[in-house]
């Protein structure tokens, strides 16, 4: 990971947090909370829903302000562009993984329906082995392999096989002994 040791990194961080906090204070909080700082209920004042989040935001504003002013020599931070790349990478890996877990099973069923006369429905079959593992095991193997590749800058076929095995073992570990535990995506369909 590229390291970046500018003394200004904390200043940028402070400014970034300050901008977010000001946005929350002047836009999000006023528009998205229905009661005020203090409300009048049964002829008495009570604390409204706005007070606590406002206090939290003011704390962030003060702290990020002092971060800007402190000019502290902070720990090295990943450079902005390499940081963005890393977050983009993780986000896409997670998105693909969750999509595979969620839709592979139903997709497989609709393929079966297309190629045969069957009229099956994943929801009704979500308790049937090995269909209930399909999305999870394929998605999980994908996740492990990609991340291992990310760390190692390389990936052997043997390791993918190992990851398949690990994912499958995790599935068995959660599914076999515990009747009530569901694997992704079987609680969502």
């Amino acid at each position: 990971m590229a390291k970046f040791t500018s003394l200004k990194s904390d200043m940028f961080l402070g400014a970034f947090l300050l901008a977010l906090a000001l946005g929350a204070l002047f836009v999000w909080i006023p528009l998205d909370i229905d009661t005020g700082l203090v409300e009048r209920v049964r002829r008495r004042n009570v604390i409204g829903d706005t007070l606590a989040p406002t206090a939290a935001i003011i704390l962030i504003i003060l702290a990020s302000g002092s971060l800007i002013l402190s000019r502290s020599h902070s720990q090295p931070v990943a450079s902005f562009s390499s940081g963005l790349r890393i977050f983009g990478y993780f986000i896409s890996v997670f998105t693909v993984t969750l999509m595979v877990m969620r839709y592979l099973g139903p997709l497989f069923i609709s393929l079966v329906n297309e190629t045969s006369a069957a009229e099956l429905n994943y929801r009704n079959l979500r308790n049937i082995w090995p269909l209930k593992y399909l999305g999870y095991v394929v998605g999980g193997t994908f996740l492990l392999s990609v991340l291992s590749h990310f760390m190692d800058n390389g990936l052997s076929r043997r390791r993918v096989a190992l990851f398949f095995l690990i994912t499958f073992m995790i599935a068995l570990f959660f599914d076999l002994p515990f009747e009530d535990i569901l694997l992704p995506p079987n609680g969502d369909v």
Partner: protein
Amino acid sequence: MKSFVLSAAIAAVTMLGTATGALAEWKPNGPIKLMIAFAAGGGADTIARAVGDELQKRHGWEIQPQQVTGGGGLKLAAAMKSEPSDGTTIGMAITESYGYNMVANPGAGITLADVTPLTTVAGFQMGVVAKTSKGWKTIDDVIAAAKAGETLRFGTMTPKLSDLAFLLSDANNLNLNIVEVKGGKAVMNGVNAGDLDLGFMAGIQAKGVASGDLVNLASALTVPLAQTPEAPLMMDRGVPFGADGYFLFAAPPGLDPAARKALTDAIIEVVSDPSTKAGGIIKKAFGGTSIIKGSDVEALLEADVKAAKELIKAAQ
């Protein structure tokens, strides 16, 4: 893949079998979702899960409990509105959810047309409770102490109860500080810790009252409390409303009548049997069941809505 195709075929055949099976006895055509309006571990949750387990045991229905908490039961009401009305979804709330809470939050867009009530199972034993060491015997001692200038904190757990506490304070020219906390347990902890001077408790005070640590100063119901019938009614101290309320099983609107009857009967059968876990809990904490079902429970909810409107107006 062979095993999969095979099991899929078996499943398909089994489903066909159930669909054309005997119509005489009502059966859900799938797992029953049991929505619970209050947090896991609380009274409503414990009763609902115990009833669910027993229904599964007795009838072979697959019951899947899940929490739909928030808004004093209104979250559940909103969620249940759009659930299938074939008996595969039931919910556990309290009558206050479809009474005061519904009326007080018109923004939720819930009306009595959005629910098929099944049956109540137990009633709150709502008392005004304080620690015995305070030296108060009845609510009159509290009124006297407050009149003498003591600043007292009255703990409540719902807006409705806060309204009732306010009316008590107002009718007797007192200056009670009403402190709304989260749940009956929190009221009891507050009273015990001395953070609150007195508060509403809906049944959890039973043990403390029996042991002499706590005292029921008054009944907040329209009737005396089962445990301490000698405690005066709050209604006789200038509050023209009762805190009567029940744990309520309900279903989505337009529930199929056969399903309604079967579900209602099955639930009542479970809670009325003190040898079941659910029946045992109800007997211990609420002094037995309070069953109001069918058109009676519909009438109860309508009366509650009317009373809630008046109460909200009175407590403005």
